């Protein structure tokens, strides 16, 4: 099908437009409208939010294009949707549908246990998850124009999001202490292309925007990730899990406010006050190693 080479800079450009915002998982038109009204910069259309995928089990696949299309028709913000790791036909379907961004996501059940999608073959931009610098640079090399740290989706436990962001930022900081010669060995250790390692070392940041995902459930969590270096936060289950529409809207507005004002404790205080209970969630320690989503992807 398409042999168009992706213009990485246009995908990166859209990611730049989403900075300082909140991208919300939504399961239907009603939720998409709530998200947009609450100031979301983008919505991720999926049939089951990660907390439901976790509790219901089974194989998780790309959502019904009909549901994604309805959401695209209902809101004016960019719409993202997820495909399984390595499932390039699901990606072809979403490109044909015309979504604005594809998330090649560990939240769904992987379709290929060795290869990710060759994202350079697509015109539509891709976001991918990572848990460390090497993984992030491998995804960028495959054509991802936006990286998000994975965290552990559907838990409402922010600890993995923090761990992955600290890992990524720490490794980038570490590159700055290496000279040119040492970067070759580092690239080998990271299993990442030398030119991307060199660029990251030179600029002190990833070659594409760096967002955070997986476990953000409160305004304080969102501000925490922003202060740690995230440029935008994905909130998956944290808004619509265990909530009525009115409660979800309050949570959504509060997280948007705290993300925009993340540097000012008074704003985060206002955003954190008088909210409905956050999602009950599940602490990472209670999840068996095999059930952890962040380990998916290579």
């Amino acid at each position, binding site marked *: 099908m398409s042999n168009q080479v992706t213009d990485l800079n246009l995908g990166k450009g859209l990611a730049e437009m*989403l900075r300082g*915002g909140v991208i919300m998982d939504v399961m239907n038109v009603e939720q998409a409208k709530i998200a947009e009204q609450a100031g979301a910069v983008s919505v991720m259309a999926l049939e089951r939010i990660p907390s439901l995928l976790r509790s219901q089990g089974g194989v998780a696949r790309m959502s019904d294009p009909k549901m994604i299309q309805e959401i695209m028709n209902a809101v*004016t913000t960019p719409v993202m949707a997820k495909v399984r790791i390595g499932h390039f036909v699901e990606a072809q379907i979403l490109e044909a549908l015309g979504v604005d961004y594809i998330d090649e996501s560990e939240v769904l059940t992987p379709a290929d246990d060795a290869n990710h999608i060759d994202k350079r073959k697509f015109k539509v931009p891709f976001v991918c998850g990572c848990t460390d610098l090497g993984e992030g640079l491998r995804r960028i090399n495959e054509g991802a124009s936006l990286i998000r740290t994975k965290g552990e989706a559907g838990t409402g436990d922010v600890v993995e999001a923090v761990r992955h962001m600290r890992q990524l930022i720490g490794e980038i900081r570490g590159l700055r202490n290496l000279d040119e010669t040492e970067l070759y060995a580092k690239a080998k250790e990271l299993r990442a292309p030398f030119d991307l390692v060199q660029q990251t070392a030179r600029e002190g940041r990833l070659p594409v925007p760096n967002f955070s995902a997986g476990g953000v459930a409160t305004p304080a969590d969102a501000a925490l990730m922003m202060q740690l270096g995230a440029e935008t936060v994905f909130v998956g289950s944290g808004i619509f899990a265990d909530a009525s529409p009115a409660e979800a809207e309050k949570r959504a507005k509060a997280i948007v406010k705290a993300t925009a004002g993340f540097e000012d404790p008074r704003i985060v205080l206002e955003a954190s006050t008088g909210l409905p209970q956050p999602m009950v969630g599940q602490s990472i320690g209670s999840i068996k190693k095999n059930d952890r989503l962040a380990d998916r992807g290579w």
Partner: protein
Amino acid sequence: MVIGVLALQGCVEPHIEKLQGLGVGVKRIRKQENLQGLDGLILPGGESTTMAYLVRLFNLEKPLHELAKKIPFWGICAGSILMAKEVSRGWGTHQLSLGLVRANVERNSYGRQLESFRGRIDYSENDVNSNTEVILNVPFIRAPYFLSWDNGVEVQGICDGQPVSLKDGIHSITSFHPELCDSIFFHQKFVDLCTSMSGHGCASEHVY
């Protein structure tokens, strides 16, 4: 010379880098208190619904309106939507009424992200046929159209026959992203305008 960049959400840092490259002072604007001492203000690209919501949330609509009487504003993509007198298609609930440029701007007119592209801009002042500058490879990202404008509003930039840059008095709007292209041309133009208005052109390296 200090230029502010509205930094509530969106594509802020590339503007800061361009402005620093020109040796002017730069200030990120997140609240009312930051609005003092500016010679110009950039309203960057981003999500217009989100930015409009945040401008309201942080009580910036009125102060911005007042400030616009004194210094030039430059709106890029979503920023042009915030500055337009009329907005067509899908504002949703968060309409702003800064009304700084007497034009009708239609959101997302080029289509979704798959229709984002890089284009050639033919730029000229006063008369579209004289002294045209050509700037290549300028990104348009889910860009708006400028559908119509009042008498006295000047069309300065054209791409594929579409007007993409308008100037109304001291304020201007562009539907493309000059901060994401290699050229410094458009930022230089804005700095020159702010310098001519402020009457003191001394460059400051200071970043707030």
